[in-house]
């Protein structure tokens, strides 16, 4: 009984805390409340995961109204894993955020910043936990609106245009999703995901189902930044405040991909998906995304934009895994979802540390910083090696799983592309390493920033420790894959057993 209520607590706690945080305008209080909220959510989501790790499914009915009329939260292994990674990243980001927010956000905005952060957090958690498809839309919009506001708080004025661009495209995507949901509702009369799964195969007007499917997939693809619908991502992640870059890059697109997986398996059944062209499209688009993202990343002159394009490539890996529509492929995607959050979180945290110290993240101005900040450099190196897929790190686990999935389906071309993606990653990672380590430190020119102060002497403890937590997690989960591969395996088993059990 308590277990079901944990799921709603995960949403209610940040919801209650957010307006309280907005009332306090002092940074230390807002930060403290956010930290407590994230820590408790982390604890609860870990508890939830332990409960569902054996394949059980938890149902919580909001307000006591039974589904399919009432909204329910349906937690299984997949949800719980995604919720856990969102909570972990939120916690690490909050630990990291104190000094960074102090430096980057205007003082009168501090309370609002943390309030919006908690709203975004609760939106993402709500998307993960719910079992009602309209509820997904609502939480999707909550998290998106909060993230538009958060991105716009960046120092550079380009943050405003990037946020606006993201707003337009994001709302477009969400509206497509909404139309799709409406069509599905019109066809079946229900909004509950389990119920939809039972009723959709019985619908006679197959055109309606096709249209609903297409609209839902396109809407989610926009949110998940799947090539070619990724255009908002590079600018949004580069110009956002550092804390938001970290948080969004590690969580927002992952949650959208989670919804995609959910819709493909638990709403529209696997048999239906196999009758469409979607699997092949996804595999091809994934491959193109990998190559495009990696190649664009190589050409960048700033660290944050390079990492953003790298994210586009990594999302390509996940999509390719889904496109294989096999147990191994899906496991690879889910594992990569978890692993990439750790890697990208650590990398953006390192970028943030450089920005904190020298107010800039362009390669021109980062020369030699690796030698001045060896701990940051080393953690960044671990995460970067994980991005390449060096064995011993989490990146290798996902790559190995994905290539095995490709081999299983005799897709030799895809294997080559995945390996090629790793090779391209070596190029841009090494570019970063060379600039940071080999070139000598030069005088810094600071651009477009009001404060423009001199270099700050030392890295704050909170920022470095949060980054090291994620970097060490990259290595730990590269060896001990019980949590990631084990849970993904259970989740995939549940997804593949047809019909969504109650």
């Amino acid at each position, binding site marked *: 009984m308590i277990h079901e209520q944990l799921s709603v607590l995960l949403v209610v706690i940040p919801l209650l805390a957010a307006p309280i945080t907005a009332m306090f305008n002092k940074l230390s209080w807002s930060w403290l409340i956010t930290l407590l909220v994230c820590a408790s959510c982390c604890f609860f989501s870990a508890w939830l995961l332990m409960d569902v790790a054996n394949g059980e499914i938890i149902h919580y009915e909001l307000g006591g109204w039974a589904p399919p009329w009432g909204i329910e939260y349906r937690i299984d292994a997949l949800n719980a894993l995604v919720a856990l990674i969102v909570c972990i990243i939120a916690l690490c980001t909050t630990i990291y955020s104190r000094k960074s927010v102090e430096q980057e956000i205007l003082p009168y905005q501090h309370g609002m910043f943390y309030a919006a952060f908690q709203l975004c957090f609760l939106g993402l958690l709500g998307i993960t936990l719910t079992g009602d498809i*309209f509820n997904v*839309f*609502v939480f999707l*919009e909550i998290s998106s*609106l909060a993230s*538009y*506001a958060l991105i*716009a708080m960046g120092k550079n*004025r*380009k943050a*405003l*245009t990037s*946020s*606006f661009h993201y*707003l*337009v495209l994001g*709302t*477009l995507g969400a*509206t497509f999703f*909404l*139309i799709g949901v*409406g069509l599905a*509702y*019109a066809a079946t009369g229900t*909004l509950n995901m389990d119920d939809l799964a039972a009723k959709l195969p019985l619908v006679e007007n197959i055109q309606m189902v096709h249209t609903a499917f297409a609209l839902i997939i396109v809407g989610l693809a926009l949110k998940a930044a799947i090539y070619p619908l990724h255009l908002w991502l590079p600018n949004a992640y580069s110009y956002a405040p550092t804390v938001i870059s970290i948080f969004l890059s590690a969580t927002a697109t992952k949650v959208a991909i989670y919804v995609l997986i959910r819709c493909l398996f638990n709403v529209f059944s696997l048999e239906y998906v196999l009758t469409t062209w979607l699997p092949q499209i996804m595999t091809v688009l994934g491959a193109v995304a990998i190559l495009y993202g990696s190649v664009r990343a190589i050409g960048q002159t700033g660290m944050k934009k390079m990492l953003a394009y790298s994210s586009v490539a990594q999302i390509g890996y996940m999509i390719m895994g889904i496109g294989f529509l096999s147990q191994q492929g899906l496991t690879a995607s889910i594992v990569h979802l978890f692993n990439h959050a750790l890697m990208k979180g650590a990398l953006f945290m390192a970028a943030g540390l450089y920005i904190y110290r020298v107010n800039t993240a362009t390669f021109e101005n980062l020369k030699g910083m690796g030698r001045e900040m060896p701990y940051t450099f080393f953690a960044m190196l671990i995460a970067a090696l994980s991005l390449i897929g060096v064995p011993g790190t989490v990146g290798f686990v996902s790559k190995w799983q994905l290539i095995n999935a490709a081999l299983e389906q005799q897709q030799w071309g895809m294997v080559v592309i995945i390996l090629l993606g790793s090779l391209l990653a070596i190029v841009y990672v090494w570019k970063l390493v060379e600039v940071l380590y080999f070139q000598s430190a030069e005088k810094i020119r600071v*651009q*477009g920033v009001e404060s423009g102060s001199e270099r700050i002497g030392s890295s704050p403890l909170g920022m470095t420790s949060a980054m090291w937590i994620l970097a060490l997690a990259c290595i730990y989960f590269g060896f001990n894959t019980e949590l990631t591969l084990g849970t993904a395996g259970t989740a995939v088993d549940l997804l593949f057993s047809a019909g969504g059990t109650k």
Partner: protein
Amino acid sequence: MTDYILGHINYWIIIILMMVGLYTMMSKPNLIKKMAGLSVFQTGVILLYISFGKVTGGTAPIVAEGFDTYSNPLPQVLMLTAIVVGVATTALGFALIVRIQEAYGSIEEDELEKMDDET
């Protein structure tokens, strides 16, 4: 043929609305016009849901004496939520436009791009 168009006239109008909104959003460089297009697009979606919920011969879904056929209340309720979301999005969008005007001095997209490329 007439049955196909006139019988589903509401859906045709909704589709036209959505297309108008989309086109405005994509082709007009002025940011306010983009927001207007987005609004129109979202309105189209709202009308779509409400159209789904209408039951022939049904009245407003409020329990009253003498009526026994009601239109489906669920889509109307869902659309209340969607309207709120739309309002919030529009408000946020306009707030951003105001800030962009302060920071750049213009709200035409092509001028903004030019200014961004220069820096």
